[in-house]
């Protein structure tokens, strides 16, 4: 794990602290911030993932053929 010190606005800290106290989901503001970062990283990974590389044009044509044969596509 990398250690990182960041500065955030007082009002942002207060808002997070309030949420931590109310929801009791996290032990501290630090834990809450860590969770926010992990969510953002997970989302970035999703966005970067893009289309499936294991699926070729030929495979796609086969799928379309099956969809047509089943009446899902004209």
């Amino acid at each position, binding site marked *: 794990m990398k250690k990182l010190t960041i500065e955030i606005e007082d009002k942002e800290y207060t808002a997070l602290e309030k949420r931590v106290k109310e929801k009791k989901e996290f032990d501290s503001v630090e834990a809450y911030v860590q969770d926010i970062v992990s*969510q953002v990283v997970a989302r970035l990974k999703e966005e970067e993932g893009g289309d499936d590389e294991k699926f070729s044009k030929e*495979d796609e044509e086969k799928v379309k053929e099956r*969809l047509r044969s089943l009446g899902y*596509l004209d």
Partner: protein
Amino acid sequence: MIPPHGGQLVQQIIKDKEERNYWEKKSKELITIVLEEEQIKEVKNIARGLYSPLNGYMRKGDFESVAESMKLENGTVWPIPIALDIPDTLAKQVHIGRRIALRDSMKTLTAILVVEDKYKFNRKETAKKVFGTTDTKHPGVEELMTIHKNLVGGDILLIDNTKNTFNNYNLEPIETRILFTEKGWKTVVGFQTRNAPHRAHEYLQKCALEIVDGLFINPVIGKKKDGDYTDEAIINSYNTLIENYFNKNKVVLSILPLKMRYAGPREAVMHAIIRKNFGCTHFVVGRDHAGVSDYYDPYAAQNIFDKIPDLGIKILKYEDAFYCEVCNNMATSKTCSHNDKFKIKPSGTMIRDKIRSKERIPEEIVRPEVMKVLQEMKEVFV
């Protein structure tokens, strides 16, 4: 197109014939586990990407992290542990790095499991975390309490990708994603069901369809309880409804072979993730989604989405719908405040009784064409 959960659509399917032949031959040297029908569904769902980003059974770290906090170790939201249980005798023979042949009851080679982890789990603790109860009257807990304590985790490779169940209505995520793209749908709402449709279902589906490009009706098919609709009854009745009352170009009907765990809110999250993997941008979560008896608050399955990180799929939370005689329309408590005496609420028990007795039912409850199809079927209920 909405990205699959975790970013990559899992495709753990051996498509090459020579490679399949290799594994058929090789599997004769491997330890074999014969899977039950519901387990076969799970293997195929993993391999076909319904459970993306899972590409196999969970290792201990993910299993415990999911049970504890509804997240995989890498932080991706995942609500229900998925692992393969094995008996003590087998656990002694299975070693990390070994491959196992997973076969169906006919001994057909279904998949190869590459063992990456072997561990034990605490049934009661897991039940409490996942189902919120250790009461063995809960069907999900009951099953969890009877499985073996030894679990294995690891990637799977699907060898047998045949679809024995309703082949014509059994689409994989890669197929629905291509289908939605071909239809030009940028937004699609997924609708989960285990019943033949009544007017309240239709109302919610149409409300949802009004705000998106397409509707994906995705009934769960599989193991039933006594009194449940047969799979055929669900498919036939939906086909009739779509034929008569929907714009057919805006609806896709395809089944979801899935084991129901009745884990209420956690299961609702899993259902949403599966629909995201199918390419849905929206998902309908009604009252008491995936619940059983009174183990969960009726709105728990809706509220859970406010407590977890954004899944990337929009959750449409609907109230129960009814027919209001004053409004002369379908409505919910959000759109109608008339006295209860004017409201006709669809009752599952009443509809079932009318189907069995072949009596007429008001068309404000079930469409006559749908009722006719159900009443003419030989086996409507399990």
